[in-house]
């Protein structure tokens, strides 16, 4: 067995900062968030589940290209439905502003229901509502045909969906305890599921996590997809450069100064 070798050279320094994005100091900060995200996922796995049955899977995603891909998928989904358009476009911005995105999915809600006849899915005294809309043999659900004209291939076992809610809740409780910012999102969950994250799940929730001066998931302005920090910075780059070139002087020879009040000598 490999023996743990302890590093006793215990000294060093780590400069951590939020600015500039993707600088070494920012990446160190993001790594702290990653540790928090991992603890959040641990909490999710200890959440109360009906019958104590394991039914959770998780993906932790980070990195500039990885988050950009999720954001673009959210934007793609946003344009498929009017009721999603505006909120989901806002939420795509939030993905880009996040440090880590956690996906939590339930692996049983579409295939191996609780089978307790609770009626939460269809309001009946048995599980017929679920099974009658699935391809089954002897109560075994055939999920091999994964095509669907709907975003989520329902119906789902709502008791299992409830278990997913407990998992998300526990992850968020830990985020609150650790004082990192996090919120649950349907848009990111659907995007993640379509991208193949939580591959065995029937329903997925996205939980972005960040540790920044401003919580990325609250207090947004109207048209947030058009007016946000990335866009403000890019517009600054667009405007300021041009503002520079419409004036001209050789700073080594002369720099304009404020005009002196009348009567004062040079």
């Amino acid at each position: 067995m490999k023996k743990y070798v302890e590093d006793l050279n215990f000294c060093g320094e780590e400069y951590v900062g939020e600015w500039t994005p993707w600088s070494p100091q920012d990446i160190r900060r993001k790594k702290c968030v990653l540790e928090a995200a991992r603890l959040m996922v641990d909490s999710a796995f200890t959440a109360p589940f009906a019958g104590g049955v394991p039914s959770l899977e998780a993906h932790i995603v980070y990195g500039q290209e990885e988050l950009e891909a999720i954001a673009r998928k959210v934007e793609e989904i946003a344009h498929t439905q009017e009721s999603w358009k505006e909120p989901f476009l806002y939420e795509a911005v939030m993905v880009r502003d996040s440090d880590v995105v956690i996906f939590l999915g339930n692996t049983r809600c579409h295939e191996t229901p609780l089978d307790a006849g609770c009626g939460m899915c269809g309001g009946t005294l048995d599980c017929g509502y679920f099974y009658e809309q699935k391809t089954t043999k002897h109560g075994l659900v055939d999920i091999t045909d994964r095509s669907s004209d709907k975003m989520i291939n329902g119906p789902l076992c709502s008791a299992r969906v409830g278990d997913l809610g407990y998992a998300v809740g526990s992850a968020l409780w830990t985020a609150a305890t650790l004082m990192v910012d996090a919120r649950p999102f349907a848009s990111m969950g659907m995007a993640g599921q379509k991208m193949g994250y939580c591959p065995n799940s029937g329903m997925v929730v996205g939980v972005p996590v960040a540790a920044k001066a401003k919580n990325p998931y609250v207090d947004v302005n109207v048209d947030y997809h058009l007016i946000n920090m990335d866009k403000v910075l890019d517009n600054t780059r667009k405007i300021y450069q041009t503002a520079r070139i419409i004036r001209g002087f050789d700073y080594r020879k002369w720099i304009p100064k404020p005009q002196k009040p009348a009567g004062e000598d040079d």
Partner: protein
Amino acid sequence: MGHLIGKEYCLDHLIEVAKSIVLAIHKAPQITGKTKIEAEIIWGGDLEPIIEVMGPVASVMRYVKWDYETIKNCYDKGESPVIIAIGGKISSSNLNWNCGACGFSTCKEFNAYSKEYKGGGQLGGPSCNWKVLDWAMACDWACASAWQYRVDNRIMGSVGFALNALGFLPGMDAKLGLALGPPRDMVYYNREEMHKSMSYEMDKRDMVSCVPTMFTAFPGGGTPMYKTKDDWWAPPEFMGVGYSPEVMEVYQQVLFEQVPELVVKHADKIAERYKKK
């Protein structure tokens, strides 16, 4: 000046803790931001209707029996648990997301179906699954909050069934009950209250019924023997599957006779409470 001795004040304080937990329930994050959540704190004599309704269900459902006897034993000993009823308005969708998670292509179709079948299940239903998530997160925050106060607790569908049947939280579609305390370790896990209520033989019978693969002998013959005793081969025993009129009769009696009788006994008084509010 003063001092507090014994457990009496702890039981009183459970109610204060429950109030803090209700704050966490309402603070819980939501995905939709549009799911209505309500909570109610119940203790002492007001638990009696809930315990009574759980009684007959406990006779046919083992997990309900465990919850029922734990709560009842504590109550009978003067160590009343406090129950937080947590309800969610989840049987209709005001999202217009048309995501398909409920089984319908549009929220409009789901709402039309829900109008007809609402409340038909033991725990309510039908449900918008995004709202189920919101409600479940609120329930989870209740549990997490209780653990932060180091109060033994368990979220219970069995209590949820009783709350539903009796008409607690009338505006809510789905309900669960979070049982809190009494103040000691392992009330709802390991279940000291249940000691000696299950024999070794009963445990073994249960395991054979519920986890038969553990006890299946060579299946190559197509009709395997089951290891139901130490010398399981002499004589061998086999398992059968079939409709049981006896079991169904008991279920019918519980669901359609005994529970409704108890509901009739208590429902008016409980409904009156909400009218006053």
